[in-house]
């Protein structure tokens, strides 16, 4: 395994942010650009890791892909694991980090409000999920904690409708539902076949 200098990466990332700042007029545009940059990384990371770590096996279940992202991807990219948390909504999943690696040396000026350079990491996650067939909206948020000076960062994953519907179809009983799913997708999503 080759180790890269953290400082080198920090300077490179800083330059990426600065370059994008010159190209845009407002903050949400900057956030979108960082996310797009991350998306490209995520798509490539998925291909690489599927081949390298998982022996070309494809994830089809939601929990499977989530655990893949939160353990394998995080371990390879950042060298550690992240804390997973569920939420109230069925289609939303969160992971919490004390501090994202990309944000380690960055202090956001007060006038930039809620902007988070973790949008890059959110883009990586979105790229991985999209490539694996789980379209989602991924965002990074600062969550202030009591008693701590620096806020924690949360990555929020909100899956698209079709993912939830597919997941419901795949359901709990594997075989019958698998057959149902094969038949259902061939015809139309709305009809359920009783076996």
């Amino acid at each position, binding site marked *: 395994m080759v180790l890269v200098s953290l400082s080198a990466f920090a300077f490179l990332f*800083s330059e990426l942010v600065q370059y994008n700042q010159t190209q845009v007029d407002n903050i949400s545009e900057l956030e979108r650009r960082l996310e797009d940059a991350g998306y490209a990384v995520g798509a490539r990371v998925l291909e690489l890791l599927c081949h390298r770590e998982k022996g070309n096996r494809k994830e089809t279940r939601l929990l499977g892909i989530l655990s893949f992202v939160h353990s394998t991807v995080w371990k390879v990219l950042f060298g550690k694991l992240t804390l997973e948390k569920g939420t109230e909504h069925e289609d939303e999943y969160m992971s919490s980090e004390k501090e994202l690696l990309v944000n380690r*040396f*960055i202090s956001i000026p007060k006038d930039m409000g809620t902007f988070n350079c973790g949008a890059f990491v959110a883009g990586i996650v979105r790229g991985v999920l999209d490539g694996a067939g789980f379209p989602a909206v991924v965002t990074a948020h600062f969550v202030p904690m009591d008693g701590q000076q620096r806020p924690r960062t949360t990555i929020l994953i909100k899956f698209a409708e079709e993912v939830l519907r597919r997941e419901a179809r795949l359901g709990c009983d594997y075989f019958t539902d698998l057959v149902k799913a094969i038949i259902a997708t061939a015809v139309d999503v709305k009809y359920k076949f009783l076996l």
Partner: protein
Amino acid sequence: MDTNDSLRVASLWHSMHAISQQLSPTVGCSGIELLEADTFDLHCFQSLTGTKFFVVCEPGTQHMEVLLTVIYELYTDYVLKNPFYEMEMPIRCELFDINLTQAIQKDRVALLGR
């Protein structure tokens, strides 16, 4: 001391440092490192690029050079790697301030401990 005063002191020091480097009788002099006065001491650290860090302290305070190298390291980490910092502007980086106060607190504890 507010921002304007700091800027005034800094520009004064910058010119004095440059003049002293020219006037120095020793060969290969890189400028003033220590200024001792009645009521204060001024320690100065110059990086390879010519950026100067100086600290004003009570007369006779020890280990200021070590503190200056620590501050230089904090500068390279939290200021130069921050994409929102513009060069030559006053430093307004939260992480730099937090770590700077921490470093000085640690130093103060170490000094009082002896």
